[in-house]
């Protein structure tokens, strides 16, 4: 008996000693932070993950456009929206609440991007590789995106939690709002890192991704936009000037080229054209945007496809361009207006429609983001390029900031370049500071119609309440900002709701 006991005890001992090792989770097929970051390819994949939450439909891919355009005076709810009708209504009329799902989609998307950017900043530097230029670019780009994401959040929500570290458990998870000044300080320092000639983004597009990644100039341009928002006119003009003087960009003669799916990005700086910083969407569902879909009419496969009919999908008529915005186009704005707001469209399939009942005024649709150039489109696919900053914006930032800082004298060239490409024959001249200001504001409205910039312009110009209260009479003070998502308030007791949304 003793013998058996001994054997048994020995065996039990053996099991005990190997127990902890036995209970380690076998992570075959799983990727963890210990194993993930080892080559420059991994660095690029880590960076790609920063893009994903932003370009998702919940964030920039759809919600961003609906929420920001419908809150502005550029767009109104579509006459016959056949989907997203609730969102169209509540954002157009400012009857949304903090629980409205599109808001949390944007909030979550940008914070996920910040988290993924922080992962890059914290881990990619440890990779040992000869491809040091890749590593440098990846890290600098993560700083760029951390700045961009915070910039979007602070513009939409005001003072928000500032996240400069990836989360470890719940440490720091319940942090409250940072001051707007602190957030802008982080944005500026991140962008200064991104455009630093020694460690930041290269001036030349990064060959790896053939021109779509932001360059040093994208960081300059974003900084210019940030300073413009902060009304630091000198700095805004200074950074816009750096982009203009860099000579890498030029306006495309054909306004249409800016948005076309078929317009590929190039590593060749001469072909960068107007793309300072653009989000590229794929035509397959899952990676496509819906900007075109929500702006286009529902009862037709509007001239989406060259040489193809009855493929892809019709628009959803969630939003239509307001008459005021249409009226701001000048009579000879031929190149631009004819593309953005064509006077008619070809209905490829008249039999489809919604119950065959709807006929719509063809002139109210912003047709920037068509499916033209896409082939073999899957149901739900909507690929197109959506610019965040294009060269014409850099020119107009310069024009606006220069005028505010020093008057119009040195600002004409920039604005006239934009107007000229639009097809407007007569260049601007002989304006004073105020009339130039009016001109540049009007120019921004027409040039960027449907690019979700108007609401931020109205806010920084101080024109938000004047303009919007004439449309929404009972608009409350503080409602220029979005409410903090209700779920976020519920989950984080240290946050309080924005003024106007209680």
């Amino acid at each position: 008996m003793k013998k058996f006991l001994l054997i048994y005890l020995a065996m039990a001992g053996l099991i005990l000693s190997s127990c902890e090792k036995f209970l380690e989770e076998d992570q075959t097929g799983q990727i963890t932070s210990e194993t993930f970051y080892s080559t420059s390819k991994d660095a690029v994949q880590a960076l790609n993950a920063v893009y994903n939450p932003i370009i998702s439909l919940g964030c920039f891919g759809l919600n961003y456009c609906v929420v920001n355009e419908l809150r502005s005076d550029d767009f109104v709810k579509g006459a016959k929206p056949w989907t997203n009708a609730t969102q169209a209504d509540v954002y157009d009329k400012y009857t949304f609440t903090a629980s409205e799902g599109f808001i949390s989609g944007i909030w979550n998307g940008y914070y996920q991007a910040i988290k993924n950017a922080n992962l890059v900043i914290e881990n990619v530097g440890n990779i040992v590789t000869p491809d040091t230029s890749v590593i440098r670019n990846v890290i600098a780009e993560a700083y760029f995106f951390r700045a961009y994401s915070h910039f979007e959040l602070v513009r939409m929500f005001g003072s928000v939690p500032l996240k400069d570290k990836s989360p470890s458990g719940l440490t720091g998870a319940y942090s409250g709002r940072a001051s707007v000044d602190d957030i802008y300080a982080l944005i500026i320092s991140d962008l200064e890192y991104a455009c630093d000639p020694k460690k930041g983004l290269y001036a030349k597009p990064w060959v790896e991704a053939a021109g779509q990644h932001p360059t040093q100039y994208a960081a300059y341009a974003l900084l210019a936009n940030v300073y413009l928002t902060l009304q630091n006119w000198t700095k805004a003009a200074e950074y816009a000037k750096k982009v203009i003087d860099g000579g890498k960009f030029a306006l495309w003669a054909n306004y249409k080229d800016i948005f076309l799916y078929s317009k590929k990005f190039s590593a060749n700086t001469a072909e960068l054209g107007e793309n300072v910083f653009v989000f590229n969407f794929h035509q397959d569902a899952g990676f496509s945007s819906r900007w075109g879909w929500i702006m286009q009419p529902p009862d037709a496969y509007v001239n989406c496809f060259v040489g193809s009919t009855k493929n892809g999908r019709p628009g959803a008529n969630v939003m239509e361009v307001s008459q005021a915005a249409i009226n701001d186009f000048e009579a000879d704005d031929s190149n631009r207006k004819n593309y953005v707001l064509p006077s008619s469209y070809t209905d490829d399939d008249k039999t489809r429609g919604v119950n065959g009942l709807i006929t719509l005024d063809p002139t109210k649709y912003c047709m920037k983001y068509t499916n033209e150039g896409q082939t073999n489109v899957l149901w739900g696919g909507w690929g197109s390029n959506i610019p965040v900053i294009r060269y014409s914006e850099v020119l107009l930032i310069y024009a606006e900031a220069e005028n505010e800082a020093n008057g119009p004298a040195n600002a004409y060239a920039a604005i006239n370049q934009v107007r000229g490409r639009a097809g407007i024959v007569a260049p601007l001249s002989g304006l004073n500071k105020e009339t130039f200001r009016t001109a540049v504001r009007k120019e921004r409205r027409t040039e960027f119609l449907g690019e979700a910039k108007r609401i931020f312009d109205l806010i920084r110009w101080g024109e938000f309440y004047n303009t919007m209260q004439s449309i929404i009479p009972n608009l409350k003070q503080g409602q220029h900002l979005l409410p903090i998502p209700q779920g976020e308030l519920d989950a984080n007791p240290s946050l309080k709701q924005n003024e106007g949304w209680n």
Partner: protein
Amino acid sequence: MKKLRILITQVFGYGYKKYLLIMKLTTLLCFLTLLPISASIFSQSTSLSLKVNNKTIKEVLEQIEQESKFHFLYNDNYVDLDKKVDLEVNKMNIHDILDQLLKGSSSSYKVLDNNLVVIAPVEIMQQQKVTGKVLDATSGEPIIGANVIIQGTTIGTTTDIDGKFSLDVTNANAVLVISSVGYMSETVNVNGQSMINVKLAIDITKLEEVVVIGYGSVRKSDLTGSVGSIKETELKNAKVNSIDQILQGRAAGVQVTQASNAPGGGISVRIRGNNSIQGGNDPLYVIDGLPIYNNESVNSSAMNPLFSNLQQPNILSTINPNDIQSIEVLKDASATAIYGARGSNGVVLITTKKGESGKVKVQVDASNGVGNVAKTYDLLNARQFAEYNNNARANSSPALPTYFDLNNLPPYDIDYQKEIFQTSKIQDYQLSLTGGDQTLLYAITAGYHNESGIVKSSGFERYSLRANLEKKANKWLKVGNNLAISRSESEIANTDNQYGYNLIMSSLQYVPLQQKMDQYGVYSSGQITGAGIPLIVNPGYITDLTKMSYTSNKIIGNIYAEVTPVKELTWRIAFGSDIQESRNRNFQPLNGGNASNAAQSIVGTISNFYWNLENLLTYNKSFGKSNVTTMVGATQEQYVSEASSLYGENLSNKTDVYNNFNGNTRVTNNMYSSYLPWQMASFFGRLNYSYDGKYLFTASLRRDGSSRFGKDMRWGTFPSVALAWTINKENFMQSFPVISTLKLRGSYGETGSTEIGTYNSLSTYGGSNAVWNNLVAPGYATNRIPNPYLQWESTKQSNIGLDLAVLDGRIAATIDLYKKRTESLLYNLPIPASTGFTTMLSNVGNVENKGIEMGLSTFNLTGEFKWNTSFMVSFNRNEVIKLDGQKKEAVLGNVQIIGQPIQILRVGEPIGSFYGYKTDGVYTTKDPINPATNKFYNQPNSLPGDIKYQDITGANGVRDSVINSLDRVILGNANPDYVFSFSNSFSYKGFDLNVFIQGVQGNEIMNLTRATLENFSGTTNTTTRALDRWTTTNETVGQRKAMQAGRAAYGNATTSDLYVEDGSYIRLKTLTLAYNFPSSLVSKMRISNLRIYCSANNVYTWTNYSGYDPDINSAGKATLNTGYEYGAYPSAKVYTVGLNITF
């Protein structure tokens, strides 16, 4: 051995040691038995002469020893040799001398070889050999291991494999007591007979039943915990196709609900309520000591997202229920805590058939059955639908042109339910071979089950084999195995399911005016644009052309060795494994009825491998009146699950094309593969102590380590204690002979639940892609916030029970009261999204279950006409005690069938509470109008014929005359007040009849089938309730109006009390009548038993529920959304006839 020792003690008393020094035991045995023959010729021929006066017998014997070669063997304690005698003999032999000497004393003698003379008490010397056979009174088969004991002594023996025994009886008038577990004892007067045959009747009171518990077994009388036990005899009457179905109504405290009535479909089993919100609530199944991992819900969605939307077959259906010998349901903590971190939800121990020593027994069982749908919906016919559609279009705002010309309707009028239902055929064949001898026991079984469903394109087929062997290698070693191999093939009709094309829903909604297919074989698509009828997938297309199947190969078994170095100690080592390979296939060809624009297919495989190494040491010893059993053990186990699946389109329209994905196939980005392992290591021990059978104590302790928890939280300890007092054994109870059992039990313990899936404590990286130049580029980032503190849910349970039996067990009752509190509930805690994550799986929240269970069994008649009754009822109350500290409730949006949440999780309410609006009929033209707006008061957007909702409260807790989300209230819940069963067995001569009734009372069901059908949009077919719809000419009917477009807010798809129905039912579940042919008749055919039977399943249901069957839970195993029904597979009435032959 024992017998011998008893005898020696009796003969020689304690003084025998002195003599044994020179005499081996075995030789003595020989002497004793050979004695009558040898009878010592020497002793007869030797003469002695002797003369003594007033000497003790002892002195006389000593004198004889000196003067002769005789020696005497005796024990002073037993024989009185101090009597003084006078004796004078001359040349007499030793027999005559001793006869004279011992005359009048209580002693006698025997002369052995070597001139040894034994002197002992008379009764011992008068030995007589009795042999005989013990048989079962009913079957006439030998009873093995029956005890045969001489009354008033401890002398006895046990019967061998032929039921034979042989016993030396010292007194011709001795009385033998013959007993065996499960039989009534018999007493027999020997009366000088040397051959005694006894027949034992089965003991109906079953008091000495042995109950299997975790890692061991105990006599039922020694049980301290709450254990429900289902024996083979009860299993015989339950014709089921899956082992979990047997549990319905057969153990108190167990609630069994069908997740799908499809053959091989899922089932939800809840022991003493729902403990967990998000983790698993299924009991742990242990088959022959091997835990079976049965949590497909955790499994499949994580592993195979493409299939998470499809109905999951029931893994337990791959095991042949005919192989089961007994099922034990462990309920209280004393019983379950030995399974530690997996014991929270109760444990179901399944013991499969073992061989019995005796002659080979061959049993054949064959049955055939047919089934038909038990109930259908009454739907509108073609004309009624056309009127309804026209009405709905006319009522639209603005009015739509009507489409159907009632005088010129299409020539079709089809009830599509008839198109999908069929008569099912069920065949079941079982063959078993059992037997063994003293060293080898074997049970070999084979089974085949084939069942076509009552819904076309569904069915289930299972082949199974089992071999259970046990070999006693020598005195101290026993080895054995349990091995089962099975193959199951399910054809699945997509039902019960909110995703994809629910066949039941499409059969109910498909417009009766449409033909199934045209003359070219193209299925209609359902769409009639002019009538506003959308595309609905044609039910005929689904049943005829689509294919969904699940096949599975399973090997489950273990090998073990039991070493018994000394009698009290057993060391068992077992290695078990469960291997399952399964394959899912789904195919949808391109035809008119298909909503998509390409033939498409999904194929997937899942491969699971589980192993378990178990070491157990059991020690059992009695000290006087005390009995101690201790068990310590350790197990190590690992589970590895691997899966892959592919989605392809652009396929040919041929059904089997999923077996042939090729270059032309477009494989989209819907591809998955996964590898998910987990490990557990455990140490456990248990102490059972009983004193005099009256006072029983059990304590157990288990320590579990699981890889699925946070690094610092891997180990947990789960203790339990239990006490029981068998009051009927106390002396003061002897004056109440009517009470045969009275036992009070109490227990307390802690258990856990580990169902959280793999890697949940880690921060793993997941795909997060970008787009570059119109190409998708891979990206990776963390997809889960790490929670190093993640641990099991822990349940503290206390239980008080009482077992009572009176009239020799003819009436027996068991009552248990329990309270369970589950803490550290796993819950996806919403965390600030500014972290980049929205939820973190955390241990928050508490849930409480408390209840009463009662079981009553009576033997009403025990004569030739026998009648037994058993009744069980269990009450359980479930309550969410805490959610996550901050939140008091969460509206559950997981079920999106009607586009709105249907349930709420709220502190103070049970899990599964339905949440929505209360209605108050419909608005009529007589309702008051608000003069300020010229509209109805609370619902200004509503018109006559719209549903009127109740204004319950407003923003400040007061009614505000606005109907909004604040007016939602709890509308009921899915937890029954009580579940019960009532079973009656009758037997007379060869007939037996079993009537099994089962029911559930007081639960609500959210009938989303009806909610979908009765939205009265006029676009799809609906129930005949639509005939009672509001019209301008008839406002009193109570149903809302039909309206196709422009319905105002709070209209169609609002969760309301309209769809919450009482789910109570009483069901005559099975009725089985059997006839056993008399053995006199069948024995000529060498058949030992021939039984024919017929049974009816699901005979009749008393219920107010309007759907197919109230015994339904479309949520299946998912606890959060428990208790709704949507397009559920209907239940069938099944009639079966069968034949059972034993050779």
